[in-house]
């Protein structure tokens, strides 16, 4: 079998993902897998997204205020939307959100259901005209290296590995240049 990415070399490694309870395999050659693995296989629990989110939040972490109170006591806290009063349990039973704010209120709990329904957790499609995202605003104030790092995350999420590899090289070059200047 040929590598699905470069379609030239023999595929020796496969990467699996679960979408909608179905298993999909990606067959890659060693070279392509290395580019992939650089970013993906470091995840301890084998889930690529856990790593991506980790990287992204470490990049953006200092800019975002933690939006959710972290409750780590043994008991289960009742999760409720402040704006419309919908509880997370009622949402699970009825299958309908009460308002736009429910999405941020139920936060991380949603990712699992979204992954089950859509095989994805992030929107990549249309935005309302004139929508300026928080990330856009933050990116404006970032250094060149941080900006490239974010584009790198984006490329990985979209599985654009050639773009990702190019960005990674750019970041390395920039960092090397900075270091040599600091000497």
């Amino acid at each position: 079998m040929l590598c699905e990415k470069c379609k030239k070399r023999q595929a020796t490694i496969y990467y699996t993902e679960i979408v909608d309870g179905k298993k999909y395999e990606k067959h890659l050659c060693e070279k392509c897998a290395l580019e992939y693995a650089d970013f993906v296989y470091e995840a301890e629990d084998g889930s690529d997204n856990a790593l991506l989110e980790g990287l992204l939040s470490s990049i953006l972490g200092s800019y975002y205020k933690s939006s959710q109170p972290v409750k780590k006591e043994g008991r289960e806290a009742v999760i409720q939307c402040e704006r419309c009063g919908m509880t997370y349990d009622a949402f699970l039973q009825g299958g309908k959100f009460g308002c736009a704010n429910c999405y941020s209120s139920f936060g991380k709990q949603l990712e699992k259901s979204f992954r089950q329904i859509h095989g994805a957790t992030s929107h990549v499609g249309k935005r309302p005209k004139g929508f300026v995202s928080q990330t856009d605003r933050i990116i404006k104030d970032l250094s060149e290296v941080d900006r490239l790092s974010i584009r790198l995350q984006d490329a990985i999420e979209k599985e654009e590995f050639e773009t990702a590899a190019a960005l990674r090289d750019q970041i390395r070059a920039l960092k090397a240049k900075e270091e040599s200047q600091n000497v």
Partner: protein
Amino acid sequence: MYKWFEALGGNEDIVIASGVRLSRNLEKYPFSKKISDSDAIHMVEEVLKEFETYADEEFGYIECNLGELSEIEKFAMVERQILSKEIAVKKQCSGLVMSEDESTSILINEEDHLKIQALAGGANMQKAYEKANEVDDYASESLEMAFSEKYGYLTSSPSNVGTGLRASYLMFLPALGGANKINRLSEEVMKYGVGLKAVYGDGAEGVGHIYELYNEKTLGSTEPELLENLRGIMEQVAAQERKRREYLLANNYDEIEDQVFRSYGVLKYAKQMNSKDAMTLLSQIKFGADVGIIQFEKPLNIYKMIMEVQPYSLQCRSGKYVGSKVRDKLRAQYLGANLSEVIN
């Protein structure tokens, strides 16, 4: 003014129509599950007001509060796929903006605040998407939509979040349906995030062999990606239907020819007909016409006839509420008068 389904496009032998639905909510009101009666009134008024100018500019837009329509009118619109049953029986204030040919409509305060729908005849998804998108852009110019950077357009149901896009092809699959292949096919397309279900009747095979093929996933892909994926599946389903048709004709031509002409005779000359029989027989002569077994003096739009023999649509035209016995007579009269003469 013609309805959209009266304008013949291409590909009618298998793809009857293409439709796009965009689910949107206004940021400032709770979703339908939690919205109060008074907020619902304000929301519907606000959206209707917003579309007043649109209705003026775009020739022939109709605006109304659904409370102003009769039961029969509302259920006839359910049969024509404009309203959902849910909104037709809803007690809370709801509204409708619709183009005169019924190809474009906006339902206000259904499951989501705005349900933007656009339909095009034949396999013309791009046209339907562009229209829905244009209406969406118009609406978002002054109405702030519930949108998050991470999750995209926020909807009542988690199954619509992200793009809020549901694209569907209305497909005529008599050969696959007749061979009981729909169940297997729907399991097959599910693997690609696509659903397939009968439009009329219960069960997988349904009545009249008209099916809807639609994207189930709305998050994690762009709109063009979703449409392209669905188009690819549609073409494969259509190819399978064509293959099955060829097989049937090669092996059972005489039986099929006999059946098609019998069905025509019953449709044209019966005095009473229930809607299930009418749809089954219409489906058979559409198949006969599509493959060239039967030829009509005038081109026949079977889908239009299927819509018009539905119970509420019949009553709507007759202008009064009538029982099923009278409807069966009205249906037979309609078919006798509207079925074109055979010329072969």
